[in-house]
């Protein structure tokens, strides 16, 4: 049995087929400083990092002379690679829906994210409602099927949202054509809080029912199980600490509200997303243990996003919050490296601290820092090779490895363009 399990684990493990040595690079490990040297990639993992390494005989050599290697970028807030809408905005609590059901591995945004050095992204439900749908991190394994993208073993999440979006009662139920249909509750920030509270009150009752049943079943009795409710099941997992809560928020007051509600119901907020006024309540955020995932310098797109400063990320970090910079956008996702660079300008973070905001910190926030986020022996070989200093706008991604497999190669991409264009032209000509 044990052997079987082991075999199964081996099959599940994302094994890279090739052994690589990336030579002569400037390696920004994030965890252990920056050094000049080589990385050995074997079996999908980082086997060795250092100024000098033992190069396995069968290794393929990637000469990165004059180039830089960083850990794969992790985007803690993305909406790519999902089919058929990212909002189930019809109801105030949509925790029954799951992004995992609608993964679209053929979304070209995945490939483009790869070209921007992203190897893992937290694919979130939208912010249309107070409690949104279930979410999960994906690896950008372009070419694999939906299951093949899932970051195996990662704790799944759920999206909450505060403020303008969930209280937008102006969404007429029934669409624009049917303005007479009553609008969705809530219409105020108070209502958003109430919606979340009510959902957890309901969940507590549901959880008690199931706990009672589980206790009886454990004693060998055979009672009829309670009805399984997908909406409450997800929130039960939150109460049991088996599902991370990612909260879309802007204003300091609603951030404090959310932290208090979570404390009261006995669960943790894993990350605050956007959190543009986080700098005002950084100490409280740190005390709760929540991470903060924000934009570098994107704000004023709506009234609740006005009181923002570019120092937000650095200030929160200095107050003891684990901070990441995210994209929330398929385009911004392609240059998160330069977003991180802005944290050096605004707030005076070091190169490593800035880079950590798009690598190790989001990995910590997603609970996957044992696997990814830095260049350390034993971690997944998710690596990005840049031609220039990676926090610069001028840096271009040369190669991206995930699990030790090359998923993006700039040379192949560029040299293949003519052939792809010709193939397309052939089809266009055929059209008529």
């Amino acid at each position, binding site marked *: 049995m044990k052997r079987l399990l082991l075999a199964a684990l081996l099959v599940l493990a994302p094994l890279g087929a090739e052994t690589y040595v990336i030579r002569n690079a400037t390696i920004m490990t994030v965890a252990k400083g920056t050094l000049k040297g080589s990385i050995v990639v074997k079996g999908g993992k980082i086997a060795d990092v250092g100024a000098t390494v033992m190069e396995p005989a069968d290794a393929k050599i990637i000469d990165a002379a004059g180039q830089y290697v960083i850990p794969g970028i992790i985007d803690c807030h993305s909406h790519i690679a999902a089919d058929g809408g990212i909002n189930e905005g019809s109801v105030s609590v949509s925790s029954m829906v799951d992004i995992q059901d609608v993964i*679209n591995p053929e979304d070209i945004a995945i490939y483009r994210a790869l070209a921007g050095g992203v190897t893992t992204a937290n694919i979130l439900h939208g912010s249309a409602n107070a409690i949104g749908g279930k979410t999960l991190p994906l690896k950008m394994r372009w070419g694999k099927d939906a299951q093949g993208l899932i970051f195996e073993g990662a704790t799944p999440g759920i999206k909450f949202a505060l403020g303008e979006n969930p209280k937008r009662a102006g969404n007429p139920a029934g669409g624009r054509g049917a303005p007479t249909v009553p609008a969705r509750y809530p219409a105020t920030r108070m209502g958003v809080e109430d919606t979340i509270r009510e959902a957890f009150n309901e969940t507590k009752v549901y959880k008690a029912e199931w706990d009672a049943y589980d206790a009886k079943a454990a004693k060998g009795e055979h009672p009829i199980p309670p009805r399984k409710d997908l909406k409450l099941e997800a929130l039960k997992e939150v109460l049991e600490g088996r599902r991370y809560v990612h909260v879309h928020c802007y204003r300091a007051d609603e951030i404090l509200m959310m932290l208090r509600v979570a404390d009261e119901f006995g669960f943790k907020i894993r990350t605050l997303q956007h959190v543009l006024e986080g700098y005002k309540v950084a100490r409280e955020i740190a005390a709760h243990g929540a991470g903060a995932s924000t934009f570098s310098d994107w704000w004023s797109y709506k009234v609740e996003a006005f009181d923002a400063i570019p120092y937000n990320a650095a200030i929160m970090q200095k107050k003891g919050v684990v901070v990441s910079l995210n994209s929330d956008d398929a385009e911004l996702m392609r240059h998160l490296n330069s977003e991180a660079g802005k944290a050096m300008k605004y707030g005076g973070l070091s190169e490593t601290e800035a880079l950590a905001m798009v690598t190790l910190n989001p990995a910590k926030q997603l609970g996957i820092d044992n696997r990814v986020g830095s260049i350390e022996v034993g971690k997944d070989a998710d690596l990005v090779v840049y031609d220039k200093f990676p926090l610069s706008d001028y840096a271009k991604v040369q190669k991206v490895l995930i699990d030790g497999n090359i998923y993006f190669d700039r040379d192949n991409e560029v040299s293949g363009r003519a052939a792809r264009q010709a193939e397309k032209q052939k089809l266009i000509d055929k059209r008529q």
Partner: protein
Amino acid sequence: MKKTVTALLLGCAFAAAQQRPAVAIRNAKIVTVSGPVISKGTVVVRDGLIEVVGENVAAPADAMVVDGEGLTVYPGLIDALSTWGQPGAPAAPAAATAGRGGRGATTTPPATPSPLAATAAVPPARGPEDRPFTTSWLKMADEVSAADPRIERARSAGFTTAASFPTRGIFAGQGAIIDLLSDVQPGVMVLAPSLGQYISVTRAGGGGGMGGGFPGSLMGYIAYIRQIYLDAAHYQLVKDAYAKDPRGMERPAYDRALEGVLESKRILLPANRRVEIDRMLRFAAELKQPAILYGGRETFRPEAAALLKKYNAPVLLSMRWPERPRDADPEEVESMRTLETRDKAASAPMVLESAGVKYAFYSDGLDQARDLQRAVKKAIDRGLPREAALRALTLSPAEIYGVADRVGSIEKGKIGNLVVTRGEIFDDRTKVEMILVDGRKYAPAANPAPTGGRGATTDDPGVNP
């Protein structure tokens, strides 16, 4: 009472017999589908059944003899997924799934009201508990009507049989195999009453993520379907316990939505893109429901066909191959995906054939002989053997629905559904000479009125596609 029933039955039998004299088609080429082609033979249909078929068969003395010189006899064509027999139903079930690409995002426009299209103004659903867009209890067998004018058009194109489903809603209802008869009691049309549940992930009238009630997104549809199956399992559990010993137990409320789901022996799920095929096959496995996929547009991709093979799931292929819209913007730069799909879609049957996947064609609103011919020809041009094309419209759908003991080929004892043509059935100059449905003889309509094309909701002979 009993006497009356007997008398009625006798009356019916008599009337039926009057309409159905024995018919013998002799000296014809007979393409049996299940066996070898008989280059010159006779087939006799009596009392609605194929009495005998073979080379050296004498026409019975009482039979109406048709000289088959120069004619070919085929099994009646079967539309593997249809709305025929439902006046007022949408012309084609939409295999639409939310997302990108071609016709994928089609929604069916609302139809004129009919029992199968009960779309009364109801408040938007607040969640799965409101059972949105669910009429799982609806049975096509109960709703079928010979008054649907599309029946005559389809028959004139060589169709004798259809797997007809209610198609409005998420759990739209249960399909039936019907014979395309005119002027009969509806019950006579039904060959097999319970084919399974038609499931869709779109709804008439639109609605989106930001309003319109639950569900408004693809993940919402999926969550809803999943919840329904969880509820059905729980409902069954409680019902069984109550049946065993009702004393002292709270009576479970009767839930017609769950009853309809529980009595459906298989589900039809929409899937066009490879991603959708993967998603729906996994979903059906999770729900532990035998599934048939419909749409199948990207099954020309070998990896999609391999998935179907892996899950041993049949697929119903729309015969409406994707085409560039006539009013397309000439400046529009289409994606490689769109171009490739349009270019290769018609090779799907050949790819499925090679992969050993069970598939059948469905008309998807096509019911004009020439349109069908053109559609089949496109697949044949892509390498599909003619016999395989014929099978995908006869025996294969019969096998997929488990009615191959009744229809789908010309064999002794099977139902007398035949189409007689001058020329090979899918050639463009071929003329349908005669159609036998359930042993009843029909001539093709001289000039069948054109349909309104895809999405047309009613019989409106004035509307051209």
